[in-house]
């Protein structure tokens, strides 16, 4: 009698099981992100100087009291880099959420429906993927104004097609599998099959692509703010800090290189978490 209970499948939910274990690459990514997010949340309680407080100590080089020096308004660059995590990661998550909310349903519909609907959606996806995303984002952001919410909306709007394309491919792959055919033969409705079989199997891919979308959301929003379309001052924003610091590169290199490194590290963390080993 004991064999029966031993042979029973472990009661892990289909979702939990599919998320699986992390590779070395992904673990490094997760570590970077965790440290960044913790620093970002705790930023006001770390005893740093006020990131927006200007002082008479303008354009100081790196020293014990100002680790990365001060900027042209005498604000502490280190404190601004740490506080800059907040707006960057928030915009990144906004882009990721919007890209997922738009991309997953569209990909599901295209992959599951096939036929004319699929062809039509694929046309739109291909068109969007080929578009010069940064050029469009620049034009639209310049028009609607560069608030954090607008930047996230604009970038999410230009970045959903990659998610849709991936989900569509995965759905087409899964829907041909034997167990989905069996579920259909048993009379499962399309909605039930999508919820019970297709989504749990696509979830790993969606989570990975979410992370990649966050990475490129941060990458693009930093590029936008470097080009002058950052969140309004005085909010600490890495791209804007690089833009302002670059003229003092020879005198105080950390003023632009430190926020630039922060962008790179954040993008790297989310990219590694979402990419697969080769």
């Amino acid at each position, binding site marked *: 009698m004991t064999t029966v209970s031993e042979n029973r499948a472990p009661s892990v939910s289909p979702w939990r099981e599919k998320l699986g274990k992390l590779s070395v690459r992904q673990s490094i990514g997760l570590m970077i992100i965790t440290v960044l997010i913790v620093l970002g949340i705790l930023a006001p309680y770390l005893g740093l100087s006020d990131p927006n407080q200007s002082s008479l100590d303008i354009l100081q080089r790196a020293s014990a009291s100002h680790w990365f020096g001060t900027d042209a308004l005498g604000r502490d660059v280190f404190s601004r880099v740490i506080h800059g995590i907040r707006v960057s990661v928030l915009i990144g998550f906004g882009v990721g959420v919007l890209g997922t909310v738009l991309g997953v349903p569209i990909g599901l519909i295209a992959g599951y429906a096939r036929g004319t609907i699929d062809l039509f959606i694929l046309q739109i996806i291909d*068109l969007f993927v080929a578009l010069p995303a*940064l050029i469009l984002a620049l034009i639209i952001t310049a028009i609607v104004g560069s608030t954090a919410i607008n930047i996230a909306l604009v970038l999410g709007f230009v970045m959903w097609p990659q998610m849709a394309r991936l989900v569509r491919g995965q759905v087409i792959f899964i829907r041909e599998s034997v167990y989905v055919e069996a579920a259909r033969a048993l009379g499962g409705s399309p909605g039930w099959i999508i919820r019970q079989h297709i989504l749990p199997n696509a979830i790993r891919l969606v989570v990975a692509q979410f992370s990649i979308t966050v990475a490129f959301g941060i990458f693009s929003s930093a590029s936008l703010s470097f080009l002058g379309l950052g969140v309004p001052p005085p909010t600490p924003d890495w791209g804007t800090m690089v833009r302002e610091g670059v003229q003092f590169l020879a005198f105080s290199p950390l003023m632009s*290189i430190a926020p630039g490194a922060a962008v790179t590290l954040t993008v790297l963390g989310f990219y590694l978490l979402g990419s697969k080993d080769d």
Partner: protein
Amino acid sequence: MLSHITRRILLMIPNVIAMTFLLFATVSSFLGSPAAAMLGQEASLEEIAALNKQYGFDRPIIVQYLDWIAHALRGDFGRSYTSQQSVADALLPTIPVTLELSLWAILLAVVATVLFNSVPFARRVVQPITTTLAVIGITIPNFMLGICLIFIFAVKLRWLPTTGWVPWSAGVGAHLSHIILPVVTLAANYFGSFTLVYREEYKAAYRRLFIKVARAKGLSETRVSLVHALPNAILPVVTYVGLSLGPLVGGAVVTEMVFSMPGVGRLFVGAIGAHDFPVMLAIGILVIFGVMVANLVSDIVYTSINRQVSLG
């Protein structure tokens, strides 16, 4: 074959029209009346209405769009609001700068991708380094890499000038010394994404029968890799370059800004800062059009080569 090309061209026309019209409509409706922007805040409603009538801004948007296209086809893109210079005159000298930068960067990135990823004897040693470089290339923003290169090679070592642009006529050495850092900056980004594509294709080629046959014939690994796997993996990369030209354009804009190069990107960013509507629109529409034509050409080239491969 011919029907495929015809279908692609026919499909492209509505796409181009739809995208450029959407852009035109978005820009015009959100910016409000350009006349108000030109006259400033003190202008009276009558003055604005008069100017709107003079420039034709009071007509329906579709008429304005068709009018814009008709003028654009004759090379007339309107006048810049800020400099009052004709857009075509401002735009023309910037195009060669951007083209040169992009072509060098793509060439360098493709050569580096092939070199780093298909040297067979060193693959085990080189691969982890290549992977790291590719990941860095993808994740480092162009402005960050550009600034680091300027700091190392121009500020510290003083080997190269910091920024700026010198035409070929001022001397080959001067020209190349100004363009090398921007090209490397842009190419690093391309190298990352090309490597991902090339590796997938290279692995796929290795799984195919002709590689096994070539090995079974007793060919050396070098020969198998360079003569058999490489040509099969490089074609998708070339197609990828053509198809992803749109996303690749963004890097060029940022790179031009970092190195103060007088290219299309810098003109565009300047126009955005000044809300210079005709310049923004002309560059936006030209880039969309150029990217779509490039996509079409690379698609046609790819299908025709593929056809020959499968027939031959």
